[in-house]
Each structure stands twice: as C-alpha cells, then as structure tokens.
C-alpha cells in the first residue's frame, strides 16, 4: 500500500490552492508540475545553485529542498508573481538595462534572491550583494552585471519596501511571535 497523501492549503502569488500531495514531492514539483508555473527552474537538485529560488513567507528558499507537505498554510511567491499587472519590477528593469541576462536560466532565481535581499537589507552595498547572492550560480559568468543590477536597485529602493513581502513577513511574525531580532533584520523604520 502506498503511503498516504498529505492535504495542504497554501497560496502562490496571492492565489489560494488546496490539494493532496505526495509527501515525497517537493515545492518545486508542485509549482512546475501541478500548477504549471515553470518560471522557477530545476537546477542541481542539491540546494547549491539557487535556480529554484522562491519566496516562502517572504524568505528565499530552494524549492527543490522543501517537501510538499511543509507548504501547508504558507505563502509562496514565484517569478511569475513579480511585477504588477504586466509592469516590470524595478529589479527586473535593472537586469535588462544592465545586461545581466545571458542564457537566462539562472535569472528567475537571481531575481527572487535579489528581492529577498532588497527586502531584508535595503541599504545593501555591492559587498553585501556579492555575499548574500552567493547561493545563486551563474554558469555563463554574469556575476558582475547581476551584482550591478541588484546593487543599483538597492540604492534606488533604499526607502521602499516590497509590499507583498512586507505583508507576508508581518503576518508570519504575528503568527510565530519572532522577536525584535527578526524585525531588525528586516530593517524596519525606527
């Protein structure tokens, strides 16, 4: 007899879903094969390349390592949910203008990790960008321009927040009671 499925209720890009999932599936499988959201890419399968990066309750994670049952009650944001009503997010615009896209396979993961960084460390300088994006590999060697795109957007968005992420994180904080430490990491205005 095969193991029982798990029942999960979750949202992706502000759309709610409820379904039965195999425990042995991952979030990446659910996104790509169940929801047909194929913008999130399959890379190394070991959490080393970052191609499958999505936001889980506002935090960047490797979707290939999140077991499907674990997404119950969570909010997920993927590349398809970035930008509003067809308009590009400033980070996406920066990627295009800075020439930070070559084959494009790492790009969705880079954008999601970039968004995480912009929300957590809005004043990030280039050093910080290099450090915090080091979980995303670009085999075409586009690091230089990608870092420029992210650092430029960070500078532009110093005072801004990404609404989706802020709200999601706020909800999570209220849920778990995570303390001041977490708030400081988000760089909330004092």
């Amino acid at each position, binding site marked *: 007899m095969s193991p029982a499925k798990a029942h999960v209720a979750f949202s992706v890009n502000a759309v709610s879903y409820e379904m039965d999932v195999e425990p042995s599936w991952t979030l990446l499988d659910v996104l790509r094969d169940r929801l047909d959201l194929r913008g999130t890419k*399959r890379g*190394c399968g070991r959490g080393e390349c970052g191609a499958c990066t999505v936001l889980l309750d506002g935090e960047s994670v490797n979707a290939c390592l999140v077991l499907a049952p674990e997404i119950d009650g969570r909010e997920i944001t993927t590349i398809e949910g970035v930008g509003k009503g067809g308009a590009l997010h400033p980070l996406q615009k920066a990627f295009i203008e*800075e020439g930070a896209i*070559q084959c*494009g396979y790492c790009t969705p993961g880079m954008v999601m990790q970039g968004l995480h960084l912009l929300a957590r460390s809005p004043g990030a300088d280039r050093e910080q960008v290099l450090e915090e994006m080091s979980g995303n590999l*670009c*085999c075409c060697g586009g*690091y230089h321009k990608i870092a420029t795109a992210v650092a430029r957007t960070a500078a532009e968005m110093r005072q801004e927040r990404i609404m989706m992420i802020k709200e999601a994180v706020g909800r999570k904080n209220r849920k778990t009671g995570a303390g001041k430490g977490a708030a400081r990491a988000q760089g909330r205005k004092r």
Partner: protein
Amino acid sequence: MTGDDDRGRKHTVIGSRTARVDASLKVTGGAIYGHDLVLPGMLHGRIVRSPVPHAILRSVDVSRARRVPGVVSVITGKDAACQPIGFLKDQPVLKADRVRCVRDEIAAVAAVTEEAAEEACRAIDVEYEPLPAVFDPFEAMKPEAPLLHQNAPRNRVPHYLEFKAGDAEKVLEKSEHVVEGSYRTPFTAPACPEPSFAAASFDSAGRLSLWASTQVPFYLRDVLSKCLGIPGYRIKVIQPSMGGAFGARLDVFPYEVIAALLARASGRPVTIAWSGQEEVECCATGQAVFVRLATGVSREGRLTARKCEVTLDAGAYTSWSVTQPQIMLMAVASLYRVENVAFRARSIYTNNPPSSAWTAYGNPPAVFAVEQQMDELARKLGMDPMTFRMLNANKPESTTPQKLRIRSCGLKQCIETAAHRVGIDRRKEKWEGVGLASAIHMGGGGRMFKSDGGGAVVKLSDYGKVSIITGAVEAGSGSTTALAMIAAEELGVPLEWVHVVAGDTDTAAWDAGSHSSRTTFVSGNAVLEACRKLKKQVVRHGAKLLGCAADDIEVKGGRVICRGDPSKSMALDRLVRAVHFTQGGEIFIESAFYDPPSEFPSRDMTGNLSATYTFTTHAVRLRVDPGTGRVRILKYVAVNDNGKVINRGGLAARVEGGIQQGLALALAQQLHRPGGEEEEGAASPRTTFRDYRVLTFRDSPEEIDVHFVETDDPVGPFGAKGAGETGCIPVAAAVANAIADAVGVRPRSLPITPDKVLALIRNRGGACS
C-alpha cells in the same frame, strides 16, 4: 548611444548599448527551456548507466523493470536497432556487448511518471565481467594496456594530425634562447546551467519531431536519419530556449537518439530531462590535454620557431575533441609571428568519459603553454612582457604559416592598452603579480565542416514587423540580438519592430551550427544580404508610390522618405499594405545564404579556416595568499578586437562571462572521475556542482574592465567579427603568468588550486608542480 565607424557613416542601432531582445521574456520567467516543455501524453525517459569503467556485458535483465506499474517501454542495446554515432562512428547508442566508461548507456525506460521510470531503472539487473581499465593516455599507449577499440591498436585514435612549416628543429638549435616545457589541463565539464534535455515524438504518420538543446539542429537531423534509418525529410528538429551550451551541445549524444528510440518503442512522446547531478557527471567533457612545447627567440627578440606535441585524452569514444588540434595549431603557428613550426597531435582512447568540444575548442590549453613561454623568453631577453609581445604581434592583412589569412588585426593596440589599463608599471605589493596573455581566434566563421554557411530569410509584414528566420541557434550568447540589430540598422526600422523567429529545421534556412563564434559573422552577413534585397524592393515601390527617383529614396526611422522633398514620405507599414492589397501585388520576403571565403583545412592542417580573425589581450593583477594558497583577482582587464562592436552592452557581458568561466578553469575546475579518488578536502568522491567548483559571486574579480579596440573588418557585417568565445581563451595563461610573477615559480598544470600554489611557494627556486 551612437557609434561612428571610420567610414564616416553614423549608425543608429549598431554600436549602441541595447537591451537583449529576449531579456524581458527571460526576466519574467517566460522563456521556455527544454525542461519546461510539456507534450500531451508525454512519458518520462531515464537512462541506466554503467557503474564500472570497463567490462563485458554478460546479461541485461529487464524483466523486473517491465513489471513496474507505469512503465511503458524498456529498451536495451540488443533490441535497439540503430547505427553507432560519434566522429568515427565508434559509439553504440545503447551498449550491448561492452561498456568502456562509467556512465555508458546500457538501457533506457519510458514511464508515465519520473518516479516509475527511476524505480524501473533501479530494477534492471546487469551482469558485468570487469576488464582492466586505463585512465591515463600515456598508460593507454603502452603495449600491455587494455585495448578499447579493435581498429585502434595501442588505443591511438586513427586521426593523427601533423603540421610543418620551415624547419623548427634546426632553427631551435640555432636560436639565441629556447624555452621548453610540459603543460597539463584536466578533464572539465562545461557545467551548463540547464541540464541536458531531449524530447521525441512520432506523429501518427511516423514523422519524427525531436526537441533538443543542441547547437547543431541540422546535423542532429542528419545523424538521426542515418542512425534510425528514417528519411531526412521525415525528421524535424526544434530548439527551445537554451540554457547555455559552451560546446557541450555541439555533437549528437546517445541520450538524444535514446529519446527517439523510446518514443518509437512506446508510441508516445518521450522526454529525457537530466538532473543537475547527471549533467555534471555525464555531459560531454572538455578533454584532458598534455602539451609539450619549445619556443625559440633570436637575440633581437623575434620569435624563431615553435615545436609542439599534443596528446589528447579522447575518452572512451570519439567526438569533436579529436579535431581540436586544428584550433590548437592556431595558438602555436599563428599567435604572434613565427615562421618555423612543427606540430603533432594524437588522441588516445582511455576509459575516461568521452570528450567533445569545450569553449574555444582547444585554444585555451594551447595558449596556456604558448603565452607562459612568451613570458619566460621575455625574461631571458631582459625585455618587459608587453614590449616583447608587441614586437612579435601579428599585422593586419598578413598570412600565417598555417595559411590563416588575417584581415583586420588590432593585436598591437590590444597588448598596449591591456598593459596600461592594468597598470603594468605600477608598484606591486608583496605577493602581487601582473600577467599578460593574448589569443587569436576565429572571427569569420570556422570551417570545421565542409560548409560553413548559414542562411537567413527576412520578411517584412504589413505592420512593419521584420521577421528574421535563420538556422542560427542561440545558446544564450546574445547573437540573436546582434542579428536583430543588423536588420534594424539596414532596414532603418526601430529595433522593437524586429523579431527573430525561433525556427526549426523545417522552417529555418540551413546553418552549419552555433560554434566557433560564427553566428554574428555568418548569419549576420546572411541577414544583411537578405535585408539589402528587401530594401531594394522597398525602394523600388517607394519611388513609385512617392513619385520620385529610386536614387532619391531613403529608408529610415520606419519610413520611406524622398531626400529631395522630405514632405514626400510614407510609413513603411503603409507601403507594404499598399503593395499587398493591389492587383498583381507582391510580398516582401527575401533570403540569402552566406558561406564565408574560407577553406576547409587540408590533410597537412593548412588552410584559411575562417574569413577573418579576432584578437584579444588580457591583463590581470592578482594577489596570492601565502598562508592558504588562495588567489584574489584584484583587477582583470580584457581588451578585444572583435571588429565593429554591434551590441556594446551584450558583448561586454559575454566577454565578462568568458572571463569568469576562464577563471574557473584556471583556479578551480577539474572533473573527478565518478567513483574516482577522494581529493583532500572533498567530503565525497561524487561530483556535485559545488565540488565541481563553479565559481560564485564571492569569487568574482574585484574589478573587471572590458575594452574594445574597434577595427573595421572588410568582411564582417558592418565590420563586425565573431565574438562569443574570446572572453575565456587567454585567462588561464594570464593568471599563470601573474602567479609566476608574484611567486617566482610557474604553474604548469591546471587548475591552479591552493595546494598547487602552496607547493609553488615552497619550491621556489626548485621544481614546479
């Protein structure tokens, strides 16, 4: 931003910093790569591979696999009817009698789910009779070594290459200074970000469609036809967006044919999508190369001769690597001016994974040897590295001993500019070093097949949309954007109106493939020619419709304008509509085929295999950490002569990309044999991305400076030359020269890992690694 060429013509689009035409699709997750493809009713294919490097296959039992629920078909070497593949047709697609390397394909399964396919694969029982295996080409050449292929005694691949110009042996003896050395580069994996993929589907009439991430769709179609015994006109190859290729997709590989075999056996579409792990361990490798080189120089500092012997590890079966010596010869006979050259290359079969093409096709390991010896000779002469190189630099409109016909050449400027931009005269801190290295590469196509041509069809629609349909593949390098810019420039339309259609082998004009940095040059010229024909047609109709002479007509800004009386003008789309919607009207579609003026190399390796050549000089300033052996790149300068630069931003990005890839090869990358020895510091002998050492953001140089010396090439479209590969060729050599400068001892093998650097420091004044 506009750019002027020295013909005094101002370009509107060419030379500007333009966003790539595919950028907005990719940045929103909308680009469809092979792994994203969904075909109705598709099955998942998985391959069963040998865990041993050399063995006789006694039995392959698939009975348990067939009983796994969800499995539709299982095939093995015995029942798969197909011809062998490979450069010398020495590789069976599915191995029936013998396996010759770890990862050899033994069987394949197609099932309804990935899980079922994987479970079935694990249920296939194989009995092996292990044979002795050999992993070093020099060992493989010994009489007692195990023989891999019957027709290759002593495991020498029957494709031996030799070149002679002048009398290198004699001239070296008489030269004032001679430097000799041996150099090694290891097996590497191109590590494409997108793992390999192929999907096959037979329609109800038995016609095959194959989706593949391939650099050579037309060649793939030909091989499939011969291999499967299907007439070529019943096969179509389609490329989705590609996540990088770097030479790993230049040949036809077993998994592509296996997808078709599984589709045929199951009667349903089958997709084979590798995992990242499979990609690193099973992709086409860059081969291990052993170079022995001697270079001589006269008292005045002129190069006199080079003598070179290359041994390549072909791996278990032949692919393109055995032809790479033709390009390695470029570095030996044509980089800088030297009259006497002796060159020999041999490829040897071993039980290592088969090696194929890797970026720049053998040029990097050759330059690694050649450019280090340039520094050593400069030192013997008491000359500085920059002056010595400039003294021997190639000149425009010259011919090399290999009969390469150089047209435009900015090498001298590249050397000088690179040296100055890196601050070669600036004071160095302790453990800091500066190194230079140049390269010559094909810039006007690369005649590695009998034809080096490429076709283009250009259509102008009644909305002014320009559709370009070429056979030119883009693997991510940005050549598509360059083609669009060429069309926009020639037809005088905004770039936004131009659309490069992702074609397939049914609709696209024939093209030899994406390699040798040929796309911008070859397809660019084809596109340019087709656009010129279109423009003539537009001008003819414009003259009629506006009532002025054809000579008076200007096409720009998306409009047709009468030069003499600018009030007489018409929007281009209106013109097209007018011509469509009329009795006896016309459509605006033109085609062109461009085959560059070059030669297929003859048996003695001479021949102008490209229509023109690109040059580049890299200069690097780095610091060595004597405690850990780590190397920190402080400043990396690359000065490039790629002719006229078409997309300034895009080309800079590609060169930077090449530099990062070159640095990975120089400092970190080597492929461990799956199941091979554990390396100190590695937690597991299996190779993963991290273990494979793809560099990260943190390993980026502190400063990268990419600069262009724009020569105006007489043969290239708008004066442009090819560009995709030049970024990585001289990197290892420049880094080695800089490390030698910092430490005082030369690294002679790649990668220059921390343990090697520490060994160099310890052995200063003595032996090298």
